[in-house]
């Protein structure tokens, strides 16, 4: 049955004019083909543009029975104008690791959602979940039943919970992956089911897993605990392929910048001079790397993938505390563990997680992200809690980070301070 568009939406319509497909077109089409919610949603959006204020009410119910997350309650504050979106709850669905789907899975999911919700989806939300946008309260349990019983999938995290862990495509398709990102992501999801489904923390907590320092899931920018694949041994070099790059037989960057003629490939200019630690050089026609100085930035490997590959002694670097700019500005995560083995059952990593969660649950203020907790106390306090040793890589540059002070117990032999003795020699 075709629906009629009752609201004029000139400002929303502007968005259709750009070069890319617009969500306004998509939503409107779905609305004109039977989903009045879609048309009401656009109508309310138009009103919000006009008032420069949102017309969604803040929060409410948070889940299905037994869960304290995965459903985000949304209600219109102008339901008399837009009755079909009076209740318009969002459902987060835990995506499969690396976001692999069969077309049958997607069809089935869409069928369920067309039947029980607005038909609008968002693939994927920035946490990684599949996002089902807009349904009524009485549809939540049936949707959950169908997701779990028909699709074999679960709700994701929301609120003060662990958020749905996410990972890059990893070893499934990427030869650079130093980690089985999918296995790690799945294991964390299963291990921390309680934290994922029920609030446990002062605020949200995110794990993201990237197989190598290219960090395709932007773990370093977006997760409270970033797990990034790395290697300990030497970058593998195929010298004949290096020569082939230099001779122009292989395209640099796997041809990724091939839409323009950049001139002849210049290994000195494009690789060696751009190495951030200046640890590469040509010895005649042989490429040399001082691997002790390499920071695993991936640049040389990205430019010459057929010649250079990560090493084979692999593990992960763990960083903590990235967050978006609500308090104190955006923050990237800070190095915590330079190298850790990531083999199932990941006990060493989970012990680390346990320590930092314990600290945050104890000391974290309401709505304080883990990175903000570290900012409020100090890196030093974080290191004590996590039982880690300070290393130079934790300092961004002299004087912008706090000094690390040692206590007497931490230094061999320790020391005693006699303030009276000190004052004999130094006036207060």
């Amino acid at each position: 049955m075709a629906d009629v568009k009752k609201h004029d939406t000139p400002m929303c319509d502007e968005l259709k004019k750009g070069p890319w497909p617009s969500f306004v077109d998509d939503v409107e089409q779905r609305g004109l083909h039977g989903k009045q919610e879609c048309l009401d949603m656009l109508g309310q959006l138009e009103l919000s543009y006009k008032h420069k204020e949102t017309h969604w009410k803040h929060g409410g119910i948070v889940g299905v029975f037994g869960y304290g997350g995965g459903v985000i309650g949304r209600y219109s504050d102008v339901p008399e104008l837009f009755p079909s979106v009076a209740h318009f709850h969002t459902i987060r669905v835990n995506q499969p690791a690396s976001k692999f789907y069969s077309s049958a899975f997607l069809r089935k999911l869409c069928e369920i959602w067309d039947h029980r919700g607005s038909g609008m989806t968002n693939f994927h939300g920035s946490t990684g979940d599949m996002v089902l946008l807009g349904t009524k309260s009485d549809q939540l349990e049936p949707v959950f039943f169908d997701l779990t019983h028909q699709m074999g999938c679960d709700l994701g995290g929301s609120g003060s919970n662990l958020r749905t862990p996410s990972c890059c495509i990893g070893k499934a398709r990427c030869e650079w992956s130093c980690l089985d990102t999918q296995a790690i992501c799945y294991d964390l999801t299963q291990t921390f089911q309680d934290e994922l489904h029920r609030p446990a923390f002062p605020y949200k907590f995110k794990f993201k897993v990237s197989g190598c320092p290219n960090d395709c899931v932007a773990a370093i920018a977006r997760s409270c605990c970033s797990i990034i694949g790395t290697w300990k041994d030497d970058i593998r070099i195929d010298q004949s392929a290096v020569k082939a790059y230099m001779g122009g037989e292989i395209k640099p960057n796997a041809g990724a910048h091939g839409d323009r003629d950049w001139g002849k490939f210049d290994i000195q200019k494009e690789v060696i001079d751009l190495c951030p630690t200046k640890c590469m050089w040509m010895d005649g026609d042989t490429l040399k790397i001082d691997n002790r100085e390499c920071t695993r930035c991936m640049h040389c490997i990205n430019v010459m993938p057929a010649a250079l590959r990560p090493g084979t002694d692999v593990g992960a670097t763990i960083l903590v505390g990235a967050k978006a700019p609500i308090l104190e500005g955006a923050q990237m995560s800070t190095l915590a563990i330079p190298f850790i083995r990531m083999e199932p059952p990941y006990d060493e990593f989970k012990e680390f997680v346990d320590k930092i969660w314990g600290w945050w649950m104890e000391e974290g203020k309401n709505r304080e992200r883990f990175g903000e907790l570290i900012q409020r106390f100090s890196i030093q306090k974080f290191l004590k809690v996590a039982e880690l040793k300070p290393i130079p890589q934790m300092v961004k540059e002299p004087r912008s980070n706090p000094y690390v002070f040692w206590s007497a117990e931490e230094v061999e032999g320790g020391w005693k301070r006699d303030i009276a003795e000190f004052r004999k020699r130094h006036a207060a």
Partner: protein
Amino acid sequence: MAVDKEELKKKVLEFATKKAAHKSKMYIKDLYAADPNASPREVKNAANELVREGKLEFFSSGSTTMYGVPGFGKTLEGAFEEEK
């Protein structure tokens, strides 16, 4: 050292009910005060179990979660405003 779970649930519920009279939505951190001997994890587990039993309820903005006692109403925006 571990606190008896049923005891703790009783304390958390009493504490939350008393508090609900003047502040209807609480953070988990507020509930820690129900029993200073219990660890944050124990309080969290007790509170979540009370929700499953229908004696407490969750409220969420989508980004943060708060606990309430069924029947003690105040609009949700009010609850979030209160904390700012």
